[in-house]
């Protein structure tokens, strides 16, 4: 199960020699991931799958969305929503830094000096800047996204493997 470095080292120590040879970094085998044929596209798919996996693992997101809610009472949905909310929030916060685009309170008047991708104009969309209106949604921007590194030959499409409990 393990490499023999520990046993070898213990033998040496018991022999009373602090050999410096064993202290040297051991050449570890390089990662042997089979590079798939598809490149950039598959990598962004990979990231999306990873995010889904995270949200499922921490917050049962896929379970929740896949289930038909029609026959359930709001109290049941509420209980499930806590699981989903708490877990997805934890997953999001530990892997992404999400900030609001505008700091003003929603519902307050706002003047936009220049059109910008940051702010979408809605309603009577006409004329030219400056645009005067009311902030309806403060917007979200992901400032940082740090997803775990994929290692090994794990099939990333498996956002949740089936589980078989052995008695």
């Amino acid at each position, binding site marked *: 199960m393990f490499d023999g470095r*520990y046993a070898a*080292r213990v033998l040496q*120590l018991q022999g009373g020699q602090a050999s410096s040879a064993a202290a040297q970094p051991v050449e570890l085998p390089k990662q042997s991931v089979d590079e798939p044929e598809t490149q950039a596209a598959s990598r962004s798919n990979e990231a999306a799958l990873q995010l889904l996996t995270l949200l499922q693992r921490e917050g049962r997101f896929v*379970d*929740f969305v896949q289930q038909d809610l029609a026959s*359930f009472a709001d109290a049941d949905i509420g209980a*499930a929503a806590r699981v989903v909310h*708490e877990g997805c929030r934890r997953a999001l916060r530990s892997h992404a830094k999400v900030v609001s685009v505008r700091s003003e309170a929603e519902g307050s008047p706002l003047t936009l000096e220049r059109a910008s991708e940051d702010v979408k104009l809605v309603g009577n969309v006409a004329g030219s800047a400056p645009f005067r209106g009311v902030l309806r949604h403060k917007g979200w921007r992901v400032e940082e996204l740090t997803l775990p590194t994929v290692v090994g030959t794990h099939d990333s499409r498996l956002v949740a493997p089936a589980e078989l409990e052995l008695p």
Partner: protein
Amino acid sequence: MSAKFVVGIDLGTTHSALAVADLGDTDARVSVLEIEQLVAAGAVAKRALLPSFLYFAHESEPALSLPWDSERRFCVGEFARSRGAEAPQRVISSAKSWLSYGGVDRRAGTLPLGAPEDIEKISPVETSFRFLDHLNEAFRAARPGDGDLSAQEVVLTVPASFDAGARDLTVEAALAAGFEQVTLLEEPQAALYAWIEHNGDAWRSHLRAGDRVLVIDIGGGTTDFSLIDAVEQDGSLGLSRVAVGDHILLGGDNMDLALAHVVGQALAEQGKELDRFQLGALAHACRAGKEKLLSDASLEQVAVVLPSRGSQLLGGSIRGELRREQVERYLLDGFFPAVAATELPKARPRAGLTQVGLPYASDPAITKHLAAFLARHAFADAAGGATDARPPTAILFNGGVLKADILRARVIDTLNGWLEQRGSAKARVLPGEDLDLAVARGAAYYGLVRHGRGLRIRGGTARAYYVGIESPMPALPGLEPPVFALCVAPFGMEEGTSAALPPQELFVVVGEPVTFRFFGSSTRRSDAAGSVLERWRPGELEELPKIELILPAAGRSAGDVVAVHLQASVTAIGTLKLEAIAQTPLVADERWQIELSVRHGSSGEA
């Protein structure tokens, strides 16, 4: 080779952490190194903490690959912990508690307990090695230009309550990991170093000569107390560690489990039976709920929801509730009851609970353990009280559990109540920093201190050590001959010093192992090497695992009896070394090393 960095390692019962300081930089600050680890199947990420769990892959599972090893069949860290909850027989947890438990051979393959046959069990020492080895690999991966931890100065922290044998075994694991420049440091001292580092030079304005700091360290699995005095030293302020507490296996995990049982009970009364998996999930949910209740005084209760195990989240989930009143009753009154200073923990041995198991504290009341510690070391009137007993004047908290305001407040109020009753001034709280990472940070800072860049806490060994010798009395049938305790190492020996040679001779048969009973005392501070105790108060001496001496026959005839003196010294690493010195040496300076943590029976290969 001269090291570029000092690396502080907090090898914890439930988590490990690593901090680094640059020796080449005279204004060096300590920084925490995030540890790359497997966090889920096929996913590696960096985390400030490495959970101290080791999981063994089953043949049905793919390799537990790391960026530096694609073939690995085991893992440590976050995934090991979560996977371990799903397959509990395949995971090792609390290895550190096993390392300090003399009831098992700590070099024999005993873990995981109850592992299935496909797992080749490993020893508590090897488990510690695996954690250290992972930290080394993560360091190498994070700082490819800086080489290996074997090339750095490593400060490894241990509980103040670890005895000489457990300290030795910790060093054994570190040497196996290739750390050749390793030094041990007591965790509560590390917490105080972190506080000093955090406050910069200003720390001297927070403490005055005459102050006595009580360090209370409550981690996931253990509780540790120390007293550190601020003293006048060559015209400036010095620090000296004067007392450490017993090893108490009691921590935050016990508290989460207790709450899970309370909520689980309520669910059972509603006819909702939980299986093992759900109980595990419940402990998690209770921890989250507890943290919410403890940090927001306006909440009266929080919902604790156990998601269904199947994919149908709705309908299958179980909803429970954790109420403020429960948290207060079970956490505050269960683990931190407001007790009198005279109320000591119940020392009830747990009979028949398990065949092999850790000696968990039988009384969960941490405040009672604190009362016992102070009775012994700070309040002179109690039985076995130390000679320079003085109450604490300041408190430093450490460990994740104490992040909760109401728990800290309960400890402060209880302690101050005791002090008030005795007519002493109240103790003030030294504001700490990150309670999870302080020990690793403080350890790295201590590495700088060793290079003269800061004040060193003095104190030396936290115990006096004794060997048991049979009294020269006629044997009586059915009665064991009484044992005297011969002090070989006095309290407070500093690193790099040797104790005086006790005048008493011990006789050893050449070529045969001789075992001695071994004792430690954290209260007897004035016994010199050579003192013989014919009797002692209950609890004053604690029996440690036996020690063993074998004189090789070289140069002597087998069966010869040789007279030796036992001499103790403390190595630069911070471990205790016991040697037997021949009274009439065959060659100059003839001496033999004494094994502090004896292998049990014939367990075969280590």
